[in-house]
């Protein structure tokens, strides 16, 4: 069958068949897993590089300057140069640091990011794992990242790292609640925890339009809580340079620091991917109900382009926050979550339930 850019199941089926013709089912499975693993690794590496470059350029344009311009045309090779430099740096191990935990912490953080990427729906047929409890899987897996942060701060044997890790741990644990609850609001609207079901349910319109008021509120809460989850933007007290040097990853250098650095940007991608999937339709083109003509025009653009377009929009929004607002203090961050976002979230869930029961959505 012809390969189509609109439906990647054609590609995956073609590969599966060509492999099964010549090998046993066990070998076919092993090879497919390897292909998926390598694809995810490559994606993480390339997208991480791209995001770091994008952050520097966006930051520069907000500050009325140009950013990296010399390494490659328009500075495109800047991140590659930076990573080569990081790889060549000496790995300094502090003398009294707990060796095993010190080495383990960056790996925990980066493995969590890989796991979360495996359930992201890039396009029709391009989703590595499709559990029937996909949303639940994502929230539980990202929670494990806190352990990596706390281990990094503790095992570095450094007062600043410890303070930074404690702050960061408290912050991430608190904001997971808001992230989970706002996604739950949309699960109520969709009626299923399975990610591909949620995306397919948005074929008549994105949830943010269909769920009107509670969906918009949930979207705002999700974006705020997502930024706080990734220790970015106005919530980056844990790694605030002007206060406690670099927080929990002060003592890391070389490739281990590169893991933390990369993990932060991949977490940014995951938060945007979840926002896009659950609120903005995933890879679904913009459809409005049953306007056949309009929907047909929107279908011309391949779903994968839709997906990445929406991702870039949300990522730009989150980057905009970081370079505009000052930082919040740790007690203000926690007060924001427990005194404001959580009650609003709970009220929102009740509101959404009432709307779904009575069928008052589009």
């Amino acid at each position, binding site marked *: 069958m012809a390969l189509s850019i609109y439906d990647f199941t054609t590609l995956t089926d073609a590969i599966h068949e060509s492999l099964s013709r010549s090998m046993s089912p066990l070998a076919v499975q092993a090879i497919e897993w390897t292909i998926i693993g390598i694809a995810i690794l490559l994606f993480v590496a390339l997208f991480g590089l791209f995001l770091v470059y994008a952050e520097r350029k966006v930051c520069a344009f907000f500050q*009325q*300057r140009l950013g990296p311009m010399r390494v490659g045309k328009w500075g495109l090779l800047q991140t590659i140069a930076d990573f080569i430099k990081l790889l060549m740096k000496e790995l300094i191990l502090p003398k009294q640091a707990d060796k095993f935990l010190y080495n383990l912490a960056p790996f925990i953080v980066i493995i969590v990011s890989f796991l979360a990427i495996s359930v992201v729906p890039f396009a029709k047929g391009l989703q590595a794992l499709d559990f029937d409890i996909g949303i639940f899987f994502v929230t539980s897996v990202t929670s494990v990242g806190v352990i990596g942060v706390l281990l990094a701060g503790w095992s570095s044997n450094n007062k600043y790292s410890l303070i930074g890790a404690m702050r960061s741990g408290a912050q991430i644990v608190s904001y997971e609640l808001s992230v989970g609850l706002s996604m739950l609001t949309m699960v109520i609207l969709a009626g299923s925890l399975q990610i591909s079901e949620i995306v397919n349910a948005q074929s008549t319109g994105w949830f943010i339009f269909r769920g009107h008021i509670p969906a918009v509120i949930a979207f705002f809460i999700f974006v705020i809580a997502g930024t706080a989850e990734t220790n970015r933007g106005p919530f980056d007290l844990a790694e605030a340079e002007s206060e406690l040097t670099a927080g929990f990853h002060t003592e890391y250098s070389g490739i281990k620091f590169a893991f933390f650095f990369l993990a932060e940007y991949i977490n940014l991608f995951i938060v945007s991917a979840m926002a896009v999937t659950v609120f903005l339709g995933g890879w679904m083109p913009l459809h409005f109900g049953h306007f056949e003509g309009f929907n047909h025009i929107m279908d011309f653009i391949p779903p994968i382009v839709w997906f990445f377009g929406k991702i870039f929009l949300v990522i730009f929004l989150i980057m905009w926050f970081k370079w505009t607002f*000052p930082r919040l203090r740790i*007690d203000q961050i926690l007060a924001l979550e427990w005194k404001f976002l959580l009650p609003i979230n709970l009220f929102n869930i009740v509101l959404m339930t009432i709307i779904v029961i009575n069928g008052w959505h589009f």
Partner: protein
Amino acid sequence: MAEQEFDKIQTQEYLVNMGPQHPSTHGVLRLLVKLEGEIVHNVEPHIGYIHSGIEKMCESLTYPQLPYLTDRMDYLSAHMNEEAVCLCIEKALEIEVPDRVKYLRTIISELQRLASHQLWWCVMGMDLGALTTFFYGLRDRERILDIFEENCGARLTLNYSVPGGVMFDMHPNFQKRVKEFITYFKKVLPEYDQLLTGNVIFQERTRNVGIFTKEECIAWGVTGPSGRGSGWSCDVRKHEPYSALPFVNFNEVLYYGCDTLDRYKVRIQEMWESMSIIEQLIDNIPEGDYQVKMKGVIKLPEGEFYQRVEAARGDFGVLIISDGKKNPYRVKFRSPGFSNLSALNAMSKGWKIADLVAIMSSLDLVIPDIDR
């Protein structure tokens, strides 16, 4: 000395060193902070990293050489320091400088006050996390520095005032460029307000933080915008006007909130007042000499002479004790940063680490001013 630091610690407290190299201590300042969790119990500043013995050096310099050294103390209000020394020497010799000199000196001082406050604003934003404000403030400050370069020959440490007058006459383009800059900056300064002052996060970080009442300010000698944020009317320009200040009308900016936000607002409002002073003076510079003819070797009569000016950071004083020779016997610089820093401990007891950073940047410290 080390024993004193450690024997009074209780088991719950711990010491954190915001060391000499730190992004937000504005220079080489070491703060030994005794913390319990997030709350600050004691802040001990350790200074002296930049101490260069300026007061001792002045005893071996001649009087015309003094202003060059005072530039380098508080380099962000360099010309105001020079003005203080020159006025002190002129007061001792009982020389009256022409009006043209007075006008030029005041205009350059007020421009430098603007530049100093701009740098303070961008660094305050950066300390609190709004990294973009750094570039906006510096972008506008470059224009003032270009004016200085054209007129005085240097961007930061101006070497413009000398005892008896100013070094160079006004450049032909000076008036035009200053007026262009004022027009431009009047449009841009409200942007600063929109970006930082009106921001909810910024206000939450600074409102009711670091409260320091007027009586405490007077007791600790916290002058300048930091003192005026607590309602203490201490502007030397108003109470002992010097140079061309008797010829202008301006308001002394006072806020009564005693917190970091009001110390911030005082400086922003002072930028408007400085622009108003410059506008009143720039078109009316009288003709005349730009220097009074002084003897080759200046000898001050015996006695003590004290002169105060309002530097960007506060009350800057110069005390010259002379014994009739051509070198001063003793020169003392009363720097505003020194007193402001000594009050830091009292100001930040009981607040959190993040508040300590906010309080320190609202005090606008320049460490060479403190260490001399």
